[in-house]
């Protein structure tokens, strides 16, 4: 006691390091992996950064249950509300710019300036997709002329629970570019973070948790992509899968498994922008990949 109060604000005392325990993000909570496993995450030069949870198939199962539970509320929320929440995510991310810049720089081996540019682009991407929430229906839906006394209206509806394999190389901008278009239309997502560089994704979960995003809408898993993706692709309660982070062999295998319950599959090559460059204009392709068209006939004049 006396030792501590003896020299307040005096010469620098060696502080004990406070290391961060990275955890999964499932159902709005931050659990460790059910398996208790972790793996070492290094920067591009091989220096140890942190231990990340090594998620198992049971974590994937739990994440799907959480995502399914959240689907009703999120898809039922108004587009306006979803847009506001996505914009809020951008605000929260902006506030933690320093942290993400450091994490992205370490994860991708970039200079500080380049990493900062990637983080800015990721923030801008959230804002861009936030704007789409109440406009996608006008672009993808509409009134159809039919030969009869009916109004015929088509609207895009969210497809359900979407498994997202985040890009392996672009740990933050790539992740945001595949995640935002999935949830903006009302889907819920189970994200498998980049295997080599999962830390920005796990930190993004903290941003999501403080952005009014209902628990379970986004669930983030880290670990071996092939190990977690296989049960997700075969899962009967997953409605679609985005293979952005799978290599050619794995993508083929997963697409075969996904055929079993007729999941929507977005192949890596179909993703719009070339896989390596996430900085280009994303277009609406990714949003439209995960909506289904509902068409309603209504009698005229009744």
């Amino acid at each position, binding site marked *: 006691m006396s030792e501590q109060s003896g020299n307040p604000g005096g010469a620098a005392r060696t502080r004990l390091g406070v290391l961060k325990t990275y955890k999964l993000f499932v159902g709005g909570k931050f659990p460790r992996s059910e398996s208790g496993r972790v793996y070492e995450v290094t920067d591009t030069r091989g220096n140890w950064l942190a231990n990340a949870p090594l998620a198992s198939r049971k974590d994937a199962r739990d994440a*799907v249950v959480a995502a399914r539970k959240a689907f009703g509320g999120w898809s039922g929320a108004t587009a306006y509300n979803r847009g506001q929440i996505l914009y809020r995510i951008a605000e929260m991310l902006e506030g933690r710019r320093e942290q993400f810049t450091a994490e992205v720089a370490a994860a991708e081996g970039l200079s500080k300036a380049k990493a900062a540019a990637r983080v800015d682009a990721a923030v801008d991407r959230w804002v861009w997709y936030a704007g789409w929430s109440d406009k996608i229906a006008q672009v993808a839906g509409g009134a159809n002329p039919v030969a009869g006394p009916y109004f015929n209206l088509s609207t895009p509806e969210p497809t359900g629970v979407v498994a997202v394999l985040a890009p392996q190389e672009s740990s933050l901008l790539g992740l945001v570019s595949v995640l935002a278009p999935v949830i903006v239309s009302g889907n819920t997502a189970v994200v498998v973070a980049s295997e080599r560089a999962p830390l920005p994704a796990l930190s993004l979960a903290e941003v999501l948790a403080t952005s009014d995003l209902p628990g379970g809408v986004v669930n983030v898993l880290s670990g071996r992509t092939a190990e977690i993706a296989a049960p997700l692709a075969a899962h*009967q309660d997953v409605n679609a899968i985005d293979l952005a982070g799978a290599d050619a062999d794995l993508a083929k295998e997963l697409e075969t498994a996904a055929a*079993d319950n007729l999941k929507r599959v977005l192949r890596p090559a179909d993703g719009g922008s070339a896989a390596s460059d996430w900085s280009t204009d994303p277009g609406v392709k990714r949003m439209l990949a995960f909506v289904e068209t509902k068409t309603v006939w209504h009698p005229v004049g009744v």
Partner: protein
Amino acid sequence: MTVCYARRYAHLVTMPASSPTAPPAPPPAAPSALADATASDAALRRFLHGLPGVDAVGLEARAAQLGTRSIKTTAKAYAIDLAISMIDLTTLEGADTPGKVRALCAKGVNPDPTDRTVPKVAAICVYPDMVATAKEALAAAGGQDVKVASVATAFPSGRAELDVKLADTRDAVAAGADEIDMVIDRGAFLSGRYMKVFEEIRAVKQACARPGGEDAHLKVIFENGELSTYDNIRRASWLAMLAGADVIKTSTGKVAVNATPANTLVMLEAVRDFRAATGTRIGVKPAGGIRTTKDAIKYLVMVNEVLGDDWLHPDWFRFGASSLLNDLLMQRQKLTTGRYSGPDYVTVD
């Protein structure tokens, strides 16, 4: 110490000279070894309060510890099929319609239409007015061996006169119920009028008789959530078993606290001790709040550990449940196909 002990049990071996509250009914049907315990209100009270107290902390620790067993692969497949065959598939809602009961019966006979190897459930549990509908529906679906259980005696509160309760029971038996789930009068039990509860169970047991056919089995529901202590649950268990219950059941599923591993463990231990004392086997039915395969398997582990594997049979152990069946089916599909299943692949009840 020994003297105390002898004095405490003396009343069990000597009939009281005269007892103002002696039951008017014919001699108790309780097994002879314990016949004296039910000879009078006072004797019954002394017997029930003479039962050893329950160590609540030890009991909960034991129940929790039995819940940690890891049951995998072939053992899990066996447990899932066993659990399905032990389910009393239940619908006890004010909004029950004949259509809903028929749908439930069809599901009970053939739980997974995509897989005919799934066993049938043990019984369909309904209100008395739905018994006839359920009987018909089961026969039509080819499930004659699936029993129909009916709640009775002013379920779920049990707040009615004895003759109303008996009429309720006779109605259900006449409609063809194979099993009657009665509720005890918790008001009488909690205020210490054990003989009233005892006689009520005896009377309902008599009303379960079916001339010219097999008598309906009697399940006695305690509503553990309202008995408030483990000691009371142990007393209620002995009271019901002495009065002639075939099965003792935890709860109605209509209150906040239903079956828990700990309060079921008390009942299982009472059943074990009753068998040791009298040689009579009694069944157990936890009901309400058991929703997942994991929970169900915990109960099966408990039964096996406390009573032995000859109790692992639908005649001796049941689950009162409705949503449990869907989870068991999803787990079964996962085991047979290797893929996780989802709620889209089971019925919505």
